[in-house]
């Protein structure tokens, strides 16, 4: 037992050790010849942080260099993003962000950088669809009940979200627009506290990613009324499209970006490393445990998606703020 365990422990140490020893490896003529920094414009302990820890513990195997995580939270993600925008385009500074910071923020704030021009995609790692959730003993049995109640009593339904223009706020605003209803939007400091508000009865409805809702659904504390995407995630729960909310609503894409102007061969090396990472057994197992999917998409494909997102969000913001 103990022997087996020590073996496992050593294997694990070797993996993390690889991250550290990679920097001790003989210098190579080609990229990468020193550790790569991955900036996260969000705080410690969030889902990006956790995802990044898994990525950086395994990707050194394919890059022969360590990847260092640097958390630079602040100004709703703008601080870290700007830092990478200003960094040298040599492939040694990357940004790990999501679509709302990347493409939506430019339409609601004055940014010191231009996302579309200052960044190129290295790889989209995965995406998470959002779900609308109520307490299990809530009077709203179906999404229609919720909509009916919201229309009857505008602003009477309390919706807990994770901050203005965040991953919960945007889909909620899109729904309010599409279904012509009014919720009372109450901000919380993150998705966790918003879920807690739902559970304690302070909020009537919230949203969340299936990975964080699953335990509560199984325990019979929370009911899911609708999920994002074209296909049903749960057999008896309708999708947003089925309840009348059309379009690219409610997806969070986690994506690695590089400053624009990064050499082609560097992007190719990185892209290749991320692609093989997506097939790595340890990586898939660990991401599976975190409840995250893996769906690696390369530079061209996701860059095209970014342009679409930008257009869609621009229209959305113009719609919502009436400007």
């Amino acid at each position: 037992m103990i022997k087996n365990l020590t073996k496992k422990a050593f294997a694990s140490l070797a993996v993390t050790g690889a991250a550290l020893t990679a920097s001790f490896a003989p210098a190579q003529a080609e990229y990468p010849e020193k550790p790569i920094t991955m900036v996260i414009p969000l705080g410690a302990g969030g889902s990006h942080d956790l995802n990044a820890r898994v990525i950086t513990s395994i990707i050194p195997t394919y890059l022969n260099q360590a990847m260092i995580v640097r958390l630079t939270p602040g100004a709703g993600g703008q601080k870290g993003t700007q830092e990478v925008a200003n960094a040298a385009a040599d492939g040694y500074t990357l940004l790990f962000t999501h679509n709302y910071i990347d493409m939506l923020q430019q339409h609601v704030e004055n940014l010191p950088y231009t996302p579309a021009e200052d960044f190129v995609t290295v790889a989209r790692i995965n995406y998470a669809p959002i779900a609308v959730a109520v307490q299990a003993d809530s009077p709203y049995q179906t999404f229609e009940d919720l909509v009916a109640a919201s229309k009857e009593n505008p602003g009477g339904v309390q919706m807990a979200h994770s901050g203005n223009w965040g991953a919960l706020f945007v889909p909620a605003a899109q729904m309010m627009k599409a279904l012509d209803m009014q919720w009372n939007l109450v901000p919380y400091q993150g998705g966790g506290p918003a879920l807690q508000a739902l559970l304690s009865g302070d909020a009537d409805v919230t949203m969340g990613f299936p990975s964080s809702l699953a335990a509560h659904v199984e325990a019979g504390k929370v009911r899911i009324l609708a999920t994002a995407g074209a296909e049903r995630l749960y057999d008896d729960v309708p999708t947003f499209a089925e309840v009348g909310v059309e379009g690219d609503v409610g997806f969070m894409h986690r994506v690695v970006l590089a400053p624009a102007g990064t050499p082609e061969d560097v992007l190719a090396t990185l892209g290749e490393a991320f692609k093989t990472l997506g097939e790595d057994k340890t990586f898939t197992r660990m991401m599976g445990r975190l409840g995250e999917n893996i769906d690696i998409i390369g530079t061209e494909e996701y860059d095209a998606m970014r342009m679409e997102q930008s257009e869609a969000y621009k229209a959305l913001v113009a719609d919502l703020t009436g400007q």
Partner: protein
Amino acid sequence: MTRRFPFITSEILTLNALMVASVLSLIFMNSLVAAPKVLFGRSLSAIPPSLFPSIVLVLLAGMCAATLIIVRTRITHSILEDRMGRTEWLRAVILFGIMTLYAMTMVPFGFLISTAIATALIALQMGARSVLQIGLVSFLGPVLLYLAATRLLAVSLPELNTIELFYADMLSLFASEAPAVPATPDASQ
């Protein structure tokens, strides 16, 4: 008021400065605090962004004024008064000058060079004259801290590319001589 009560002066100066700053901020509140944004014709935040600042600034200005009145009616003896003469203030100015220099040079000069300059200057200011001691502190200190921070703790400090590559070369030399054991993070902590 020059030499006799310098600290009562510094206290009064601080209070006056705070009072003036808070009154000015109250007057120009509208240009210092942006108006809340709007969604569906409703404000995006439940309380105006200027509500808390206004309350705090009014209290701050009021209490500064009250304290100033009390201070003026009593003259108390400062404890620190005897210690801070002209030489002392001069030393403080030099010290914070060095620190400002350090702050401004860390990124352009890199961690090693900026730290070596700043620590050597501070050691000199403190009267250290042993070349060996100053050299050891201002060279070994930053090198060891840099390597510990970037290699063991995996956080980044600013460094010039040439120096960073030099470190990498040195370590790889070292690693190729003794390559057997993969460094475990535990052992290296």
